[in-house]
């Protein structure tokens, strides 16, 4: 006890921690019937921590070349003790992290918490979402299996359709004209160096901003939040978040142990794409839309229109704090809610459609 106190004094003397602790002690999280939504940001953070840990462990054996990548992952899964578990946890945690991030983003949107002064928080959050998807997309290729190979071919080909700079972007991403060993090297660098650094900086900013402005209470819940006592951030809210993390861990462990992530077949760049090929679930809504669009719409190639629409939608979504003027004044807006619900429902419906169609084939 005494040594703990002197250690604390040592740190406090040098880092001036007292104000930080005082701030956290005073901080309260509003209590209302949607308080549960506040836990998803923290849950995403938990899965990210799992990703960093298991990712570093995988680095001990992984080799990023087309000759060795598949075999090195196979080696981890079959020869290294608990290697199957580490890889399975990494793959499952990635998916749960995307899910958690999507729920977090959707709840923030629907509660319209992005209004000034939280617009910067929203923008760092959207960039973190993009980084998360980038992690997913780049990591998917690393085992160099057939599914990954074609997912990368198709995904990068889409980037190539961007007007003017598309061709150069495509070559930068692939490290050449085609998906090859150069692509694998680049994706590995992106996955293990560039994105982590980027995510780290963005996350620091994001968390700082969340602490600065605390969570947002939508107008319809303000009355309730005023009536009920807030949840002290320390220790009550933190302990609850910890329980949420434990639930996340339990889910992750169960999935990783009972549904080990498969490795699939080694990629052959000159073989046909196998029947039933699909991307990861979080890209299914784009996939299904591209599948349904006809070859030509009013003389323009269907996929070009589709991709342009997705690009525009992403930009508009990003700009929500600017477009939704009422959010700055903290006023309700029917339009924002209806648009948001329509977009989210569309994505959910297309995902479900693709999943069901995939199961049938």
């Amino acid at each position, binding site marked *: 006890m005494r040594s703990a106190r002197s250690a604390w004094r040592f740190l406090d003397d040098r880092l001036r921690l007292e104000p930080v602790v005082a701030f956290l002690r005073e901080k309260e999280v509003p209590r209302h019937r949607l308080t549960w939504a506040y836990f998803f940001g923290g849950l995403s953070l938990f899965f990210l921590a799992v990703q960093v840990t298991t990712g570093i462990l995988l680095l001990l054996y992984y080799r990023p070349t087309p000759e060795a990548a598949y075999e090195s992952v196979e080696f981890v899964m079959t020869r290294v003790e608990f290697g199957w578990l580490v890889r399975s946890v990494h793959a499952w945690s990635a998916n749960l992290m995307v899910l958690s991030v999507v729920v977090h983003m959707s709840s923030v949107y629907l509660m319209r918490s992005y209004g000034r002064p939280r617009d910067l928080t929203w923008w760092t959050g959207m960039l973190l979402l993009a980084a998360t998807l980038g992690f997913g997309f780049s990591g998917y290729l690393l085992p160099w299996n057939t599914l990954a190979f*074609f997912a990368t*071919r*198709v995904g990068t*080909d*889409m980037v190539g359709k961007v007007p003017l700079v598309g061709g*150069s972007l495509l*070559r*930068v991403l*692939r*490290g*050449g*004209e*085609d998906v*090859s060993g*150069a692509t694998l090297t680049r994706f590995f660098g992106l996955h293990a160096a560039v994105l982590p650094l980027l995510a780290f900086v963005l996350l620091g900013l994001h968390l700082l901003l969340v602490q600065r402005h605390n969570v947002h209470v939508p107008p319809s819940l303000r009355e309730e939040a005023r009536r009920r006592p807030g949840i002290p951030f320390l220790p009550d809210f933190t302990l609850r978040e910890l329980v949420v993390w434990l639930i996340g861990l339990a889910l992750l462990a169960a999935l990783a142990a009972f549904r080990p992530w498969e490795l699939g077949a080694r990629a052959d*760049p*000159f*073989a*046909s*794409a*196998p*029947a*039933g*090929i699909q991307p990861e679930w979080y890209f299914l809504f784009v*996939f299904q839309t*591209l*599948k349904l*669009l*006809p*070859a*030509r719409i009013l003389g323009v*190639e*269907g*996929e070009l229109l589709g991709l342009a629409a997705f690009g525009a939608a992403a930009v508009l979504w990003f700009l929500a704090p600017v477009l939704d003027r009422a959010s700055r004044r903290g006023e309700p807006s029917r339009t924002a809610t209806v648009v948001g619900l329509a977009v989210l429902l569309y994505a959910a419906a297309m995902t479900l459609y693709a999943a069901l169609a995939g199961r049938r084939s």
Partner: protein
Amino acid sequence: MSPNAAAEAKPTRRAWLSWLLGTSLGAVALSILYPLVRYVLPPPSAESQTGRVLAGRRSELPPGSGKTFRFGAKPGIVVATPGGEIRAFSAVCTHLACTVQYRKDLQHIWCACHDGHYSLEGVPIAGPPPRPLERYDVAVKGDEIWVSRQQG
């Protein structure tokens, strides 16, 4: 020089200096950025303008079958039509660049990625592919099937 004139000269000198500073900072940024961008763009692959390629053998292609082969850096596909004619195409789907295959049950070329269908002429007949597959010239010499880019 009167003190007045000195005061007037000062701002222009300052403006000149900050212009100098600004442009040199810009030049520094540019001299770092330009090589960086050029570095990130990969050099063009020393791809030999693939002449003729042995795509397969007649004996492995009975009528109504197909196989992919390596045509330079890209996959190609040879098919034997149900009538026994040999044709070759680029196997890169014109939609989003998956590799197509011959479907025995449908007797035409099919792309698994977004369910695109091509006739045995390489022309899209259903699904999202917007353009026909690039057609290659085929020369059968005995058992060997040689494929080359179409002339002209």
